[in-house]
């Protein structure tokens, strides 16, 4: 077992609870132990960086100092927005000594800057393909999958360095491609899914505008669903609770606005891994989706 500190973030405790559930189940199967950071707080997300630069750095660093207090050096951060804010905060204090001093004063605890922030995709990509394959049950749901990475996992590369620690990429590589990442595709391919290529891997879904500029979300999300359907996908895999919310919950609104009939199930990549490992839909929280998943996948 390899142990990581675990920062689920607010969404994984509410709207994205099935991501939390499925990640924990899958992690256990492949020898990853997750230890939730005690008394973690919100990373501040978009409202913080749109309102105060100092606050947007202080909240993530506070959480990373809690990881250090728990004597951990690596933290798993499944929400792409939290992951982005953590990476940005580290980048900012590395490049601005004055800011680093201010932040130390504000969080009121020491921070040695010794924590590595990892997305579950990066962690799972370090597991040998053989280990993943050994867990796979015989019957894999017949889905044609496209992987949607969204904005924040890879952009901007100088800050995110997504996939730098992943062994699926060439040694000493600069990480996964910023416009055309493949980490998630390779993992799902390794557990037996049929993967399709498409053009909307890293386009924006409107993320933060879910509750405010909803019309923009419908416009952007429709383009993503359209391309997925055009290439023949029957499922979209995601690695971010905001991407999931926008793609899964807005299909009815999109159909009403554009006179379309989208009904494409959106899975967290951990749910698809879970299905391949033989967990049922309920265990993986697939019943919580608003766009129903295909029937017959090992219920």
């Amino acid at each position, binding site marked *: 077992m390899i142990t990581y500190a675990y920062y689920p973030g607010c969404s994984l405790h509410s709207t994205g609870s099935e991501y939390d559930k499925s990640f924990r189940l899958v992690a256990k199967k492949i020898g990853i132990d997750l230890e939730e950071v005690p008394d973690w707080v919100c990373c501040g997300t978009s409202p913080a960086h749109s*309102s105060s630069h100092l606050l947007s750095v202080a909240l993530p660093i506070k959480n990373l100092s809690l990881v250090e207090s728990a004597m951990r050096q690596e933290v798993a951060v499944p929400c792409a927005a939290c992951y982005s804010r953590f990476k940005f905060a580290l980048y900012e204090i590395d490049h601005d000594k004055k800011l680093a001093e201010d932040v130390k004063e504000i969080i009121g605890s020491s921070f040695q800057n010794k924590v590595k922030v990892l997305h579950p995709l990066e962690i799972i990509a370090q597991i040998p393909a053989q280990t993943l394959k050994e867990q796979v049950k015989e019957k894999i749901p017949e889905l044609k999958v496209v992987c949607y990475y969204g*904005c924040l996992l890879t*952009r901007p590369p100088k800050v995110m360095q997504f996939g730098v620690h992943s062994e699926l990429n060439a040694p000493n590589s600069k990480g996964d491609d910023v416009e055309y990442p493949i980490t998630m595709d390779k993992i799902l391919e390794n557990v037996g899914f049929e993967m399709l290529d498409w053009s909307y891997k890293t386009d924006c879904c409107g*993320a933060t*505008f879910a509750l405010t*500029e909803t019309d*923009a979300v419908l416009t952007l999300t429709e383009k993503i669903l359209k391309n997925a359907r055009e290439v023949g996908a029957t499922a979209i895999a995601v690695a971010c609770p905001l991407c999931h919310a926008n793609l899964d*919950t807005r299909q009815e609104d999109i159909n009403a606005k554009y006179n379309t009939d989208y009904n494409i199930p959106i899975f967290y990549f951990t749910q698809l891994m879970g299905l391949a490992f033989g967990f049922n839909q309920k265990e993986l929280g697939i019943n919580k*989706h608003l766009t129903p998943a295909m029937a017959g996948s090992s219920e």
Partner: protein
Amino acid sequence: MSTQSAVVPNAKFLKQMDDTIKVNVNLCFQCRKCSAGCPMSYAMDYTPAQLIHAIRLGLKDLVLNSKTMWLCSSCQTCTTRCPQEVDIAKVMDTVKIIAVSEGVKPAISSVHSFNKAALRNIKWFGRMYELGLIGDLKMRTFEFFKDMGLGVKMFLKGKLKIIPSISPGRTLTTWKIFSRVNKKERI
């Protein structure tokens, strides 16, 4: 004939940008890659490249009253693709912050209301409490019935908690961080 120039340069504004975030917008040579890649530019009144140019010209009123920064989804495409390494997404954040601090009414008020409601939520609960946030947002925007059906469906699927997860320790943590930030930024 008026002797006044159509453009009244405001070098102070440019400097304000430079001082707060150390981004030099003068590096921009108007290639417009930022605007071509921007998923939200279709809804903006000025494209990101135009807004950057307006900042360089010192057109402070135009910039602070624009919709552009409020419609930025922070997707980081512009920052990633800029050949001059101008951190455009950060400029968008900074323009929002300056506009609010100078009392300019946000051109897209729902986004600003959302930010305020979310921050208050984080300060009080330490973590985001979605139902509380939605309630607070509705009180600020008066859109009581927007997404009501969706909210009910999500609630029935167990995606929204009725009771926030409260811990005095966490609240104390965020309360302290917010007030220290507030104090420091007012100096």
